[in-house]
């Protein structure tokens, strides 16, 4: 995946410096000092800003453009114990051509599966530009030794994964062992090689907005290509306020370092309306440079069908039947 050169990237109109200067973090003390120096999140202001942006409504051609953009940003995901090769194959078919009756509909960004199904997905998507993403590092709990996690990553990479979705060790983070979280991300990033690394913060378990901000910075300082909200396996998944905290962190990090980090929101996003609210948030927070599958993703499964349904509604004026679109 080609990255934008920093000079081409603007965050809310501010040109990001062309000199890349990522703060060097060599010791636990440096990391601690850096993360502690972050300002606190104003929760009331944050939520009121989200509420205000949530009232924006996209109409007509803007809505069509946004729906197509959202489709192209979907990481079509199946992470179930009951996943079968057949299910993954049909998911891949859907990923390359979401609406079989309309060739204009863009393909999705990636298919996201467990490591043992990566090779299968890779074969099914060989002649397309749909990426294969794999969760790894003892997903979803992250409760395994570093050696096991790295082995998990290596297997996914060997099987041909283009992107790795790792989970951070929330237990270590909440116990204050930030250095351990940082070191693990650095190690996994090294194991990824050319593959893109998405770091799942599991914001539903981080309790406070301040923690989300700290975890975002730790992940970015450690070299994450993407920061991702959730695994989709806990009670609280992606929410708009949390996404805003992460987008602001990404913006601030880009202004400081010149490096552009992507954001992936995952879990619980089922409707077109929700997806468009996230796009508004992206546009208003980090700017339209992030409005591309390269820097913003939706981790979802049922969202795609709703996007397709709304798309057809926009074109025909008639509400279609949900079962006109394939299930998985």
């Amino acid at each position: 995946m080609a990255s934008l050169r920093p000079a081409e990237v603007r965050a809310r109109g501010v040109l990001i410096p062309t000199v890349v200067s990522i703060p060097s973090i060599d010791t636990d003390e440096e990391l601690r000092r850096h993360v502690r120096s972050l300002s606190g999140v104003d929760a009331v202001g944050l939520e009121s800003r989200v509420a205000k942006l949530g009232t924006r409504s996209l109409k007509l051609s803007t809505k069509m453009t946004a729906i197509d953009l959202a489709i192209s940003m979907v990481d079509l995901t199946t992470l179930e114990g009951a996943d079968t090769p057949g299910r993954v194959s049909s998911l891949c078919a859907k990923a390359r051509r979401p609406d079989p009756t309309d060739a204009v509909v863009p393909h999705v960004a990636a298919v996201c599966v467990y490591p043992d199904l990566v090779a299968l997905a890779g074969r099914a998507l060989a002649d397309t530009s749909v990426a294969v993403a794999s969760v790894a590092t003892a997903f979803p709990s992250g409760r395994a030794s570093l050696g096991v996690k790295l082995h998990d990553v290596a297997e996914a990479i060997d099987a041909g994964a283009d992107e790795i979705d790792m989970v951070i060790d929330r237990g270590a983070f909440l116990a204050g062992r930030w250095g351990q979280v940082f070191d693990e991300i650095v190690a996994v990033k090294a194991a990824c090689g050319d593959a893109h690394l998405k770091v799942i913060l599991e914001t539903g378990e981080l309790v406070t907005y301040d923690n989300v901000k700290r975890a975002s910075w730790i992940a970015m300082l450690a070299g994450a290509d993407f920061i991702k909200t959730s695994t989709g396996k806990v009670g609280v998944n992606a929410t708009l306020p949390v996404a805003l905290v992460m987008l602001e962190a990404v913006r601030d990090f880009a202004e400081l370092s010149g490096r552009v980090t992507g954001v992936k929101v995952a879990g619980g996003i089922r409707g077109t309306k929700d997806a468009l609210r996230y796009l508004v948030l992206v546009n208003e927070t980090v700017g339209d440079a992030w409005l591309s599958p390269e820097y913003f993703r939706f981790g979802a499964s049922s969202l795609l069908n709703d996007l397709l349904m709304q798309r057809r509604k926009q074109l025909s004026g008639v509400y279609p039947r949900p079962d006109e679109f394939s299930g998985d």
Partner: protein
Amino acid sequence: MSERLEVNKTFKLVVKGAFVRSESGRSYEVRDAAGGFLANVAQASRKDLRDAVVAARAAQGAWWDASAYNRGQVLYRWAEMAESRRDELVDLVGAVEGHKKKDALGHVGRAIDRIVWYAGWTDKVAQVLGGANPVAGPFFNFSQPGPCGVVGVIAPQESSLEGFVNCVAAPLCVGNAVVAVASEQRPTPALALAEMSVTSDFPPGVLNVLSGFGAELMGQLASHGDVDGIDLSGSGDAADELARVAADSIKRVYRERSNDVENPLRRLRTFVETTTVWHTIGQ
């Protein structure tokens, strides 16, 4: 001492067992038969209609999974609720239709009795509309009536309560979920009866009632891909065009016939889907 101000009621939509204003924020005035102000009612938009269809689709499975006996109990409960608030319904029907109290009482009484009548039908539909078929071979062959799914109702414009009950109770009794558009100029009795349905053990979403302008809502209801049947009783001159639009999604369509002695079973039968099952004998 100052005179007490009346507390006037604004009628809201009934969607998914809740009372909601239109997402558009609009409302309109309902006038009595003499032209005086009666009440404000919510004016549903096509998005309210869309939400109501989603609610109906989600609720329909649970409604059909309930036993026929239980569906009958729930419908009967609805009649009980209406009976206990009969005076309110009499006032509302009298006001919008311009009847004397005695006539209004007759209309309301017949409406409530019709609910009870359909409550009785719930566990008799299978015997009357289904049955065992004789076939030439070692098989049992059964025809089983079931619901067609989500039914849209455009309620009669003149008969604000009786007509409404006839249209919604029939599809409900065979296990369908209903999205009804009440009479445009006389919606208040139907909205009041819909309120009573919320305290009658219906799964939320089985009966959704909207008030609003027919021109805005009827076409959307007829064309909606996720609506399986439509009752065009209150659509007037638009019925031909709506029936044509409904054909795109292969809906079952009920239309009132001129010179037709009304047969309530025809309406019930329209919204029934019959499944035929073969089973080998002796295994």
